[in-house]
């Protein structure tokens, strides 16, 4: 059963009296418990697609249907942003509790559940720490815990580790893999890092710009956890790199 069905999705807007098609005629099914990565250079519409799924912006035409037949609803999705989006006035635990508070979970229960999700990202010891006392990688781990704690039907991740240094980024990729193996969440993950996509995804959606559209959807059949130096891994990464090589520098990503 598909967790999310996207049909005929198009987003147009007018900029300087010019009609810009950010996303054109996208059809995509995301399976229940599937990890889908979306790759492509700036301007290919991958972030626009995520923002539409999140309900932050309205599509011009097309439909999004969730597994139970509803449209996109804020509160039933978990979003991890590229920039640091934790609430600085709340502790790590308080941040993770936020979504549970919105669902009126009683305080003792939500503290217990928030703590469990902090432990899932190996930050159980940092519960009472404020975000500004945490490193960039730790903050994004708290953000992942916060987006998961209220058990959303769909996780949206918008280049969540894009601002981190290479080593931290790699550690968080394997942590993401580990968490996903444990929880089997449905994940829609936007990145421009192809190695990251090949490492994490069940399927990779390759998008190309002008207009932003799906070029190809590639199933990744490599056994997990994946070895980024194995010939099959490298071959797939090269294949996608060549596919979108000419798309670079086509302009800024539109949100």
């Amino acid at each position, binding site marked *: 059963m598909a967790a999310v069905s996207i049909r005929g999705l198009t987003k147009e807007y007018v900029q300087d009296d010019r009609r810009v098609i950010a996303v054109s005629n996208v059809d995509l099914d995301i399976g229940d418990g599937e990890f889908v990565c979306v790759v492509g250079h700036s301007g290919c519409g991958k972030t626009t697609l995520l923002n539409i799924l999140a309900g932050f912006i309205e599509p011009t035409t097309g439909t999004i249907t969730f597994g139970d037949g509803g449209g996109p609803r804020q509160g039933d999705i978990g979003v991890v942003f590229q920039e640091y989006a934790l609430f600085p*006035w709340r502790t790590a635990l308080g941040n993770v509790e936020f*979504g549970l508070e919105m669902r009126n979970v009683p305080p003792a229960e939500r503290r217990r559940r928030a703590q469990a999700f902090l432990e899932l990202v190996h930050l159980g010891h940092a519960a009472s720490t404020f975000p500004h006392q945490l490193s960039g990688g730790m903050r994004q781990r708290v953000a992942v815990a916060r987006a998961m704690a209220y058990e959303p039907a769909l996780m949206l991740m918008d280049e969540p580790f894009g601002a981190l240094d290479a080593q931290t980024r790699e550690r968080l990729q394997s942590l993401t893999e580990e968490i996903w193996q444990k929880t089997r969440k449905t994940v829609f993950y936007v990145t421009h890092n192809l190695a990251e996509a090949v490492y994490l995804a069940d399927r990779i959606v390759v998008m190309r710009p002008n207009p932003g559209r799906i070029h190809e959807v590639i199933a990744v059949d490599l056994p997990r956890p994946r070895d980024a130096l194995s010939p099959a891994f490298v071959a797939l990464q090269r294949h996608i790199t060549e596919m979108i090589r000419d798309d670079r520098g086509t302009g800024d990503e539109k949100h």
Partner: protein
Amino acid sequence: MRSTEASTPEAGPGRAAPPGPLAAHLGAVWGNLLPFLVLGVAWEAIVRMQVFPPILMPSLLDIGGTAVRMAMDGSLFNHVGSSVLRLLVGFVVGAVAGVGLGMAMGQSQRVERFFLPLLSALMPIPGLAWIPLFILWFGLGDGATVGVIIFSVVLPVAFNTWTGVKSANPVWVRAAESMGCRGRQLFFKVVLPGSLSMIFTGLRIGLSQGWRALVAGEMLSSPDWGMGFAIFDSRQFLATDVMLVMVMCIGFTGFLIVTVLFGWLEKRTVVRWGMLQEVGA
């Protein structure tokens, strides 16, 4: 070996400083005291040189004696108490109205469009300029003084609150909305704490402007008690010692309210959250 992870935030750099916390504290106190000692010595030197006649420039000992006398007969506390009461009434009313107005402006474009030109036009006018008018409208006494304090507090508080709401990180609102937060909850759990450091800035400015308005208002509107009034009234009797006692009381009370009260509030909120570096730290 202690972990460098942020799980032990109490092990901050302050603790690791070589002189130890008590010595560092005493050092800070001495550093703050020294300029006042120098000022006192200079004052006494000028008094001894008789640059001014002693009645116009009393020695520190005479000022201290007057302070003790005023404390004994209670007039000191009556003056300070009446002033602080007026300030608090005016400040609380002005602050509540200012935060409310600033929030409304930050949330609604129509409210913003309407009030922004008014704020911009009124902000540069010193509150003191209104005092004579307020005296004519509200009569001599508390009405005019409290009125001008409210007026002096509302504008900077509203302006800074509005700025705070406008500059609060929009990704906080997006994150909250994605978790199903909206309406009143969005306001109280995200917008308000997110703009708190700017609100505090507005309150600090409002308080110091209200403080000035208070002293000037008391001088002109002649209430029975009040530090500003006491200073103005003393000129008739050449009671420069009373003037100086009152000036020092104004300075000390203002320091207590602004630095101690606000420092305390900020330390427990925005400084703790890393949204504002501690002032002077």
